[in-house]
């Protein structure tokens, strides 16, 4: 009996201690809004984070040929790197054909990913105008927008991707 009581007391004593805020040296340095803006490249589906600038598929085709074609093939049909456009069939076929046009849920992801990672051999080379243009070209190749549609911070988030509702969140 005595043992059991003392165990209960111990657990009552220890639980709050474990959950108390641990002491840390508090070494994080506050930084300015301007610095955060420079570091933060995240672009969200609603357009948050998209920079100024614009472009169309016509100019985007030139950007693509200069910077992307060597790895992604003519018209984005794939080569040493992923197929980006020109799907021959859909997602329920065997095998399925996953491209930006058939699979990607958000157009903003194309801009975001290309800006952070492409072209793979020189990821720091493209200007925001070139990025809007090559994004427009990839959307055009996939039959989602017209050749002369202007892509910018206002129009890109409004592009409705064919597979927008194709994902089921397993976490929630």
């Amino acid at each position: 009996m005595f043992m059991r009581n003392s165990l209960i007391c111990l657990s009552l004593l220890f639980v709050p201690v474990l959950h108390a805020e641990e002491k840390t040296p508090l070494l994080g340095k506050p930084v300015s809004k301007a610095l955060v803006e420079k570091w933060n490249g995240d672009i969200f589906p609603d357009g948050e984070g998209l920079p100024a600038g614009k472009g169309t598929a016509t100019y985007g085709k030139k950007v693509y040929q200069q910077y992307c074609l060597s790895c992604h093939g003519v018209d984005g049909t794939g080569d040493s790197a992923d197929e980006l456009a020109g799907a021959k069939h859909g997602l329920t076929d065997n095998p399925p054909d996953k491209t930006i046009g058939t699979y990607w849920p958000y157009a903003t992801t194309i801009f975001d990913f290309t800006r952070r990672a492409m072209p793979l051999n020189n990821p720091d080379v493209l200007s925001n105008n070139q990025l809007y243009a090559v994004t427009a070209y990839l959307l055009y190749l996939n039959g989602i927008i017209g050749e002369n549609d202007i892509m910018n911070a206002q129009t890109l988030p409004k592009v409705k991707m064919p597979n927008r509702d194709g994902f089921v969140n397993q976490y929630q």
Partner: protein
Amino acid sequence: MTTENELKPVAEGGLLDRRLFLKKGLTFSAAVLSADVLAESSDIYRPESSKKAGDPFSNYGLPSEYERKTIRWTMGNSMADGNGVSWTPLQDLEGTITPNGLHFERHHNGVPDINPKEHQLLIHGLVDKSLMFEVDDLLRYPMTSLLCFIECGGNSNAAWRSEPIQTKLGYFHGMASCSEWTGVPLRLLLNEAKIKGRAKWLVAEGADASLMNVSLPLEKALDDCFIALYQNGERIRPENGYPLRLIVPGWEGVTNVKWLRRLHLTNRPVMARNETSKYTELMPSGKARQFSFEMEAKSLITNPSFGHKLDKQGLYQISGLAWSGRGKIKKVEVSADGGNTWAEAALQEPVLSKCFTRFRIPWQWNGQTVVLKSRAIDETAYVQPEREELIKQRGQHGYFHYNAIVSWKVDANGEISHVYA
């Protein structure tokens, strides 16, 4: 001494009681020690290695020259050699810890060269104060250590194919490794920045040439995530995220962001390429599973496996690895008759949550053709599925999160092949 009774099989195909190896006086037919021959000229026998002074000290040790074949198998893109993967040679390793030089790699655009004096970590977004941390600052924070596996969401993907791939185990299941990681609980840094009530997600970004980023639920970040600075006691290797790596225990490898430079607290996921186009699983319905973070229970017989050969009949030890992203492994069962009968394997202690667990069981091979399998059951009572079952649920085109039972066929010559059985 072992009695007749104890050598009775516990399941078909020659599986013996897992406690048998604890008995003394048991000999393996595969490895019988030959008696040392006494040299005539001296009163004690000295092996060659003991007849002269050995090599001097070394600043950083390397494996024996006779073990240089235990390496990662690398697979880079033809146009960009830093894009691809390298695999842990699980078939050549024992125990549960992956040596640092053999930890698997997945790089999207190479291993960045980072001077820790110049590397910083920014926390911003839905916090009261945006804060910048230097690596030296983080070294002063209270730290925690965790032994856990990291497995790429794309590990084992070759097993979705219709024909079983004939290659060494590590070359298709080796995007999984296990280390002791040490670092600063993320909670401490987030609390310092003061999280705003609306925050629900966190976008983590690396400092590599693809600025790799993914979204994580804040709930998980506050639960058990930490920023690792050390791996198996030494500072993290460049290819594993030096100087800072986010550790997300039990969740798919891509969330364990290497070269961590930025944490952005938000109220929604960013929908990055690596959580939409990739690391999502297309189902037969045409819909895709997204944010399927947890790595479900898996087990593999590592020895014997493809590429090993049994030279002689007799007593062998079946040895393998099991792990679950949901917690501890509760039980591993082994079959030596293609899944008709199963016997429980011994688990090497300690059995840790979200960590590699070594299992072993003795097996008498009498030269017959058999199919060996293992299946893991975790503490949530999840049972590793047969391949057929997994395909029934998910189809064959999900690519990620393959965790079905693996089957090895041992033929009459002792050759081992990969089969779907």
